[in-house]
């Protein structure tokens, strides 16, 4: 378990609770990727950064916090954006990926890179009072393209900059993403493999988990022709049918 290499892409509202939960659970090898510096508007929900971290790259501030609190954690830092030019190399060096980004383009890049590398990952997203998480086991369970097919246009996207975000809602989804990584490293099947969790806090907190089927024609390779069960086979073979 301690040797599992986990890549966290994005150190914002999702990545912060995910890395905190992973460190608490005993993860020892974390790689942090984020190109941005800490800003004042991050502090209300990204609750490891302090005012004095403003302007510091998030990977540096997060690594410093981790090392202070969890000195046994080995932290690798990449103050860069995940891009097509570096994604394959970064993903290949890890056993599990946490998608804590807030951009659809980055989410599809993580999806495609992890599918190609056959590296499991957990998707997460939060806007306003709602959040989602879903784990993808490449070749076995539905991927992001099975669900959304293509990235939305820029004008269809509501980011947290426009729709807002509430810290504990992001915290719950980030913790859930960490829990999925922990299940994977304990050789348990992640709870959300082939399933999507939705959390709606706009009323009394509602959490739902729904199955997601692989999409025929998606290039991820998870869709398999359904085997008919014995009963339907018998029915189709019986006279008069």
């Amino acid at each position, binding site marked *: 378990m301690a040797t599992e290499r986990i890549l966290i892409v994005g150190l914002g509202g999702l990545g912060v*609770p995910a890395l*905190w*939960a992973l460190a608490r659970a005993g993860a020892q090898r974390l790689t942090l990727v984020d190109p941005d510096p800490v800003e*004042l*508007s991050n*502090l*209300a*929900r*990204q*609750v*490891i950064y*302090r*005012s004095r971290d403003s302007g510091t790259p998030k990977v540096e501030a997060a690594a410093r916090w981790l090392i202070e*609190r969890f000195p046994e954690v080995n932290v690798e830092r990449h103050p860069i954006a995940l891009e097509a030019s570096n994604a394959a190399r970064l993903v290949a060096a890890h056993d599990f990926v946490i998608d804590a980004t807030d951009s659809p383009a980055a989410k599809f890049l993580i999806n495609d890179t992890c599918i190609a590398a056959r590296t499991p990952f957990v998707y997460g997203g939060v806007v*306003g*009072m709602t959040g989602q998480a879903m784990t993808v086991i490449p070749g076995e369970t539905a991927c992001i393209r099975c669900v959304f097919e293509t990235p939305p246009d820029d004008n269809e996207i509501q980011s*947290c*900059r*426009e*729709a*807002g*975000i*509430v*810290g*504990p*809602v992001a*915290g*719950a989804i980030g*913790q*859930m993403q960490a*829990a999925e990584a922990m299940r994977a490293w304990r050789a348990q099947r992640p*709870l959300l493999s082939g399933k999507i*969790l939705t*959390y709606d*806090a706009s*009323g*009394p*907190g*509602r*959490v*739902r*988990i729904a199955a997601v089927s692989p999409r025929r024609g998606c290039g991820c390779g998870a869709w398999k022709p359904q085997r008919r069960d014995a009963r339907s086979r018998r029915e189709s073979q019986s006279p008069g049918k």
Partner: protein
Amino acid sequence: MTLTDAQIERYSRQIIVPRVGGRGQERLLAARMLLAGDARDIEAPLAYLVGAGVGTIAVRLSGDQDGFTEKIAAARELNAGVSVTVGDESEGRVDLALLIIGSEAARKVADEIVSYREVRAWVVARLDAPGKIAVIPGGSPSPPTVDASMHPGVGTRLQAADFIAMLATAEAFKLIAGYAENPSRATIEFDGYETRVRLHP
């Protein structure tokens, strides 16, 4: 209370959430709350409440408190605009109590708080099976009359315990910020990670 430019910038992402707004942020900053539970269960909720700008937070610890002094200091460092005190003052207004019950020691402390404290609103989370969150807005009966919270004995801790604590923190945030115009008294029950919500008249 009028928000300063620095406060508007700092809390901008939650201020723009519909039904939170500047008024909700002002309520958060003016609020006095009580947070109780075991150190391991309240560490993350405390950080999120401090981050959100809940003005005054009194922390009542139960169970093993080893190393929590440093964690309280770390929470204070997150936001100089928030006051975090350890121990419950016996006087003064409390707008909301968030009681996180993850052990027998935490249940005893919660029972004690319920028995003597005048609190306007409550959120009570049970982290043992079956997980429950009781949401009790101002003007409702106090927790002992709500089935979710105070039955004796704390059983097996749920795998989703940290997740439930965070959902309870979100419910506390909404009540303090005045997110719902007429919030319902509700019990949120957990079946694994899924929830079933019961609204009480």
